[in-house]
Each structure stands twice: as structure tokens, then as C-alpha cells.
């Protein structure tokens, strides 16, 4: 610290340390201090059909969902986007014990579009089984989200919605 040069060197190394500390604080702090969304519900509104696809040799169901989710708590300093998606999970497939399929998704880029209200919205991706295990299957719906930060790592979360039981016979 005895000359201008050494002072400039030492002070700049302190400054770079502070730069790093601020980055860590931004990456960790807001995510820890803000609560997860609570006001979230998702349920099956109606089923268009449950059918067997002979070409692909699998079951296919086409659903409409009611989604009511306030995802505004996910938005803070360190949030760039939120990817919200609905997964349908069921267990009694003939070939796999645990199946989880994304049936609906949406990119949310700001707080002004973070209140998701979908009434009888047909799913974007139909629910297709690997085999013929959809009949009578209890389906558990989840609304999940992945928060894309500006600094730091992706974080995930989700809330379980109402479960739904598939009809025991094909509807068409």
C-alpha cells in the first residue's frame, strides 16, 4: 500500500472479489428468500377420446385441462423466464411401472403474463402410452415449473393437481 501502483493493484483485487460476491448473492439470495407459488390448481376438464392406435400399437388419450395458476412469486431479480408444464403420471402401464408425460407447456417471460388461466384448454401433446396401459389408469396431474435464472442454476418446482381415472374401455 506504499505506492499508487500497489494500492491500485490491491484495491482492484478487492473489487473483483466484491464482483464475485455480488454474483453469488444474486444467484442464491432471491431464490432463497421468495416463496414458491401456492395458488395453483390443475385438473382434467373433459376427455375427447381414449382410443387404440393400431399403427403404433399404443393407447392415446386426448384431454382438456383446467389450469389456474398464479406463478408471479417465481419472478424476481434473478428470473429470466419460467417454463411451466403439466405432466401426467400413471402407473399401470403394461410395459413400464412409472410413466410421466408432458401434456401441456408454456413459456412465461414476465410477471404480467405469469397468471395462467386456462379453461377447457385442449392439451398440446396428447397422452400416449408406450403400450396399451391407459384403460382404467389413475392419472396424477402435476403443474411443474422450471425457473431460468440470469445468474446461477435452473430451479424446479411443482404442485400436484387433481388426479383423474381413465375410463375402463376405449371411447372410440
Amino acid at each position: 500500500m506504499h505506492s499508487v501502483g500497489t494500492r491500485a493493484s490491491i484495491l482492484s483485487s478487492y473489487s473483483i472479489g466484491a464482483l464475485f460476491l455480488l454474483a453469488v448473492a444474486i444467484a442464491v439470495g432471491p431464490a432463497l428468500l421468495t416463496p414458491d407459488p401456492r395458488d395453483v390448481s390443475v385438473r382434467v376438464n373433459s376427455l375427447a377420446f381414449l382410443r387404440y392406435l393400431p399403427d403404433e400399437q399404443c393407447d392415446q388419450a386426448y384431454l382438456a385441462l383446467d389450469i389456474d395458476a398464479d406463478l408471479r412469486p417465481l419472478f424476481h431479480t434473478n428470473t429470466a423466464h419460467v417454463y411451466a408444464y403439466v405432466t401426467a403420471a400413471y402407473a399401470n402401464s403394461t410395459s413400464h411401472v412409472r410413466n410421466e408425460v408432458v401434456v401441456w407447456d408454456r413459456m412465461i417471460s414476465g410477471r404480467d403474463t405469469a397468471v395462467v388461466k386456462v379453461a377447457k384448454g385442449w392439451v398440446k401433446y396428447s397422452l400416449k402410452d408406450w403400450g396399451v396401459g391407459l384403460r382404467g389408469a389413475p392419472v396424477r396431474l402435476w403443474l411443474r415449473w422450471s425457473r431460468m435464472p440470469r445468474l446461477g442454476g435452473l430451479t424446479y418446482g411443482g404442485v400436484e393437481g387433481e388426479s383423474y381415472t381413465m375410463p375402463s374401455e376405449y371411447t372410440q
Partner: protein
Amino acid sequence: MDLVGQERCEHIFQSVLLASLVAAFCAGWVFESISLSYMVLGAGVAVGGLLCTPNWGMFNRHPLTFASAEALEADMAAAVPQVKGRAGGKSSTSR
């Protein structure tokens, strides 16, 4: 810059940096902008650098006093009986 001034200078810069770090995080939180956050930190670094890099007068209020040549000679003469007998012994000088 004297020794007391150097210590004071370092402490001042650390305080300015810490304060601007806290202010930067709070500003980023309230206005939801990471770039604002870094601008506040940058302003703190600029202020701290301006305060602490140049050799301001306030860091030179405790000048070192050096021993004069006469005082040094007197000290060495007084110390001769103690070093007697040591071949090439070190002369112990205070100050």
C-alpha cells in the same frame, strides 16, 4: 503515505466496498435489475478508488522519524561492551 495512513486507507476502501455491496444487492432486489446492481457496485468501487488510490494528505499525518547519524553512533558506542568477544558479531541497534 505513512504506515498509519496505509492501514487507514485499506480500512476505508473495505468499508466503502462493503457498503456499496449491500446497497447494490438491495437496489437490484427493489428495482429487479441486475445491471443496476452492478452499476451501484461500480459506483462504490469508483468512489473508493478515488478516496484511496491517490496519496492524499490525510494519509500522511503520522510521518516516520528516522534516527540521526549522531544518535546512531552513540547507540552503537553504548552497545560495544555487549558485543565484545563475538567475532563479526551483529551490532544491535535500537531504532
